[in-house]
């Protein structure tokens, strides 16, 4: 057995696609402008169904970076695959990393998706119905393998370190980052490409979540989102009514700190603490006791007291029970100090992109530290019991240097991360 190496892990770059824009810069520009990416669902016709809002990535050209031709995108018709590969390439570029013969075996990838290639699968079912079993694409199976996005990134970009996927629903992106950090810490890689990619706007998925009563639908014509979709996602608000399902994708490059310094990689933040646990409770209802323990575990792992946290990037999905339990847990941990710590939910602007959400929130937290800005909780109209919190109603200048990122998955899988601001040479 190898001795623990206790290597430090830093974040060197990231790239994303969200309903606010097809890239980090486009997303950031609109996010600091307090805009919402939520609109009317038009990926398919929901007919008379009551769920009508969604977050949709605007035009994103997957052929532009030259990794996939139009013809290849015809084979690889599960969109999460090409998107993962494309963003992995761009994130490596942002981190200033070139894959070479020397470093290829020291670079790996963990990504995940909750819905995965079900778009390709749905397409195949139509083919079977219309044209028979022999016309099913030979690429169907690879398209629906959840580990293929990381696998295709390894194939297209040439790295041969550990490659697999993680699935933990809404916490997937956080688990991918945390596990990548563990791989680097124990010395099995120097660089990891981590994240989550989600294209969930398929009829069966929307109706399935809708029938579970977890998705936003307006109460009646007096609902503030009845005619304005941008008001639908309202985490921590008194009138929140479920989450808005969204497309989203984010890939983050992590590196061992000394490797980053030796190779002059840009350093944005350090992954100082991670914790993961499980509710062992209910398949959708969160459990305060284990969530509190998860947050405390991340703080302990980082060697950070609650009083050192100067921003909380909340899980806040906009469900009645989920947001309530998260606020109770934050209240328990931070005590009276909670009113002094800004807490905001990126899902108010981006909706809930399931496996991608926590990766996006980790990257946006880094970007907030780097730029000295905090992103808002849009549409906030808090409950009287919780109106003493600072939800960051509008984006503002503020220098956060220690950030807690929360994520709690459907099925009871929790993962919390503590990030500290670092600059090159720190």
């Amino acid at each position, binding site marked *: *057995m190898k001795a623990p190496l206790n290597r430090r892990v830093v974040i060197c770059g990231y790239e994303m696609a969200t309903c606010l824009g097809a890239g980090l810069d486009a997303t950031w520009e609109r996010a600091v402008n307090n805009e919402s990416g939520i609109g009317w669902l038009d990926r398919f016709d929901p007919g008379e169904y009551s769920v009508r809002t969604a977050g949709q990535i605007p035009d994103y050209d997957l052929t532009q970076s030259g990794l996939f031709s139009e013809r290849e995108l015809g084979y690889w018709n599960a969109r999460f695959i090409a998107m993962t590969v494309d963003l992995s390439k761009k994130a490596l570029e942002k981190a200033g990393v070139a894959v070479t013969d020397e470093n*290829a075996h020291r670079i*790996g*990838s963990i990504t995940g998706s*909750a819905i*995965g290639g*079900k778009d390709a*699968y749905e397409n195949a*079912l139509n083919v*079977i119905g219309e044209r028979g*079993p*022999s016309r*099913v694409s*030979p*690429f*169907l*199976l*690879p398209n*629906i*393998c*959840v*580990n*293929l996005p*990381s*696998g*295709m990134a*390894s*194939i297209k970009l040439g790295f*041969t*370190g550990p*490659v*697999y*996927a993680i*699935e*933990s*629903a809404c916490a997937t992106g956080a*688990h991918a980052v945390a*596990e990548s950090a*563990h791989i680097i810490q*124990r010395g099995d890689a120097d660089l990891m490409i981590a994240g989550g990619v989600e294209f969930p706007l398929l009829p*069966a*998925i929307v*109706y*399935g979540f809708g*029938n*579970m009563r977890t998705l936003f639908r307006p109460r009646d014509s007096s609902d503030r989102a009845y005619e304005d979709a941008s008001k639908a996602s309202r985490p921590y608000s008194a009138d929140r009514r479920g989450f808005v399902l969204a497309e989203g994708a984010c890939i983050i490059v992590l590196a061992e700190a000394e490797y980053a310094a030796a190779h002059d990689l840009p350093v944005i933040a350090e992954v100082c603490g991670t914790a*993961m*646990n*499980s*509710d*062992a409770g*209910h*398949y959708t209802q969160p459990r305060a006791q*284990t969530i509190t*323990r998860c947050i405390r575990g991340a703080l302990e792992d980082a060697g950070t007291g609650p009083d050192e946290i100067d921003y909380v990037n909340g899980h806040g999905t906009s469900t009645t029970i989920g947001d309530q339990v998260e606020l109770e847990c934050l209240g328990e941990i931070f005590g009276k100090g909670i009113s002094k710590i800004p807490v905001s939910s990126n899902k108010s602007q981006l909706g809930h992109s399931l496996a991608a959400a926590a990766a996006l929130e980790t990257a946006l937290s880094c970007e907030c530290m780097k730029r000295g800005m905090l992103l808002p909780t849009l549409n906030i109209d808090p409950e009287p019991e919780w109106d003493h919190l600072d939800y960051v109603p509008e984006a503002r200048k503020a220098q956060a240097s220690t950030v807690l990122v929360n994520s709690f*998955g*459907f*099925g*009871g*899988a929790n993962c919390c991360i503590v990030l500290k601001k670092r600059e090159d040479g720190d």
Partner: protein
Amino acid sequence: MVKSKRDPRDAVVTGYDAMTPLAFTLEGSFEAAVEGGSGVRWTGRFDPDEDFPVKVSGEIPDAHYGDFPFYNERDQANWFSPVIFSSLAVVHRALAHAGLDARGHNPARTAVLFSSAIGGLDAMIDAEKRLSQGRSPHPFTNPNGCLNLVAGKVSMLSGATGPCFCPVASCATGNVSIALGAHFIRSGMCDFAICGASDFPVLPSLLASFASMNGAFQSHRPDDRAFENPAMASRPFSRDRKGFVVSEGAAAVILAARECAESASLVNRGIVRGIGMNGDAHHYVKPHQPTVEQCMRLALKDAGIGPSDLDYVSAHAASTRAGDLVEAKALNTVFGSSSSVPVGALKSQIGHTMGASSAIEAVMALLGMGKKLALPTINLDPDPDINLNHVTDTAAQIDQKFVLSNSFGFGGTNCCLVFEREEA
């Protein structure tokens, strides 16, 4: 001979269980495997049309819910995907085998990494069918279809509240699950880990698409030896191998830190001694010999042993043209072509249970180490291009201290494990 160091954070196997096309129980599966039986039969989960390309599969016989008090009629109606039931059943039996009640052994220190490669795809198919008939999907569609609910339900069953997620690595999923459990125990993130995987891929759309990618075995020719006998369809390392047989299966492995296993007087059934993981960076289904070799070497290096210390290799060998050849050549390179290490391919008897396969192979190898039995490759008509010391027909009596269990997944995801059996 290697003298192994005993570390308090070694990942000790304390219990395991499996259900396979050979039998619903582990004992039944192992007995049938020792005798050289096959679990591959004509497909019975659905009725393939005359022109349906695949007609054989491995299906778990005689699954019954009655023995499992946690799976009452309401649970059966809500959690209708067999992936969920089988996962809970093998974990329940494996915990009993370990003599462990996660609730009684510090649930916060017990991780759940139990997983699946395909998950509850059957639930999504059911939803599509209902939608096409103008009906609403079952309200439990997404919970059944959401892959991480496999781990989530295991956590709810066991009460374990440690780290919990599903690692997915196609055909290597089971091994990756065991590897991560061992890493978590070594690093102190948890004291116990519930690992393994379940897959139920015998669905028309999956079989048809494996056929269209020329992965699955198809018998159209009357002169094929499986034309009238499906038990001959899965034939790894044979000259006439023509693809894998899609099968159902599930297996669970319960790991504990040595210090915790000892203080709780749990039986030590083996150690996860070596772990190798890497990626091919080559092709989405074709294997790549240099990285396959590298993965085995990483596992041996992590175990601190050389190839000559191994007593048996449980091969990945799925019965595909390219895959079996690459694995055999990689074994030759790593071990030297004069090596006589015995090799067996359990998929010859069970078929390919996707993500569950490496978990099942780990469990059967561990049980074989305990019983000094090395499981065979059946249906072997040796390929002259493949030079290995095959265990054939029935199990061989072999003392085994170190065993290598290989798995290589779609997308170029590799994971090899070395298990060690310690002297009592």
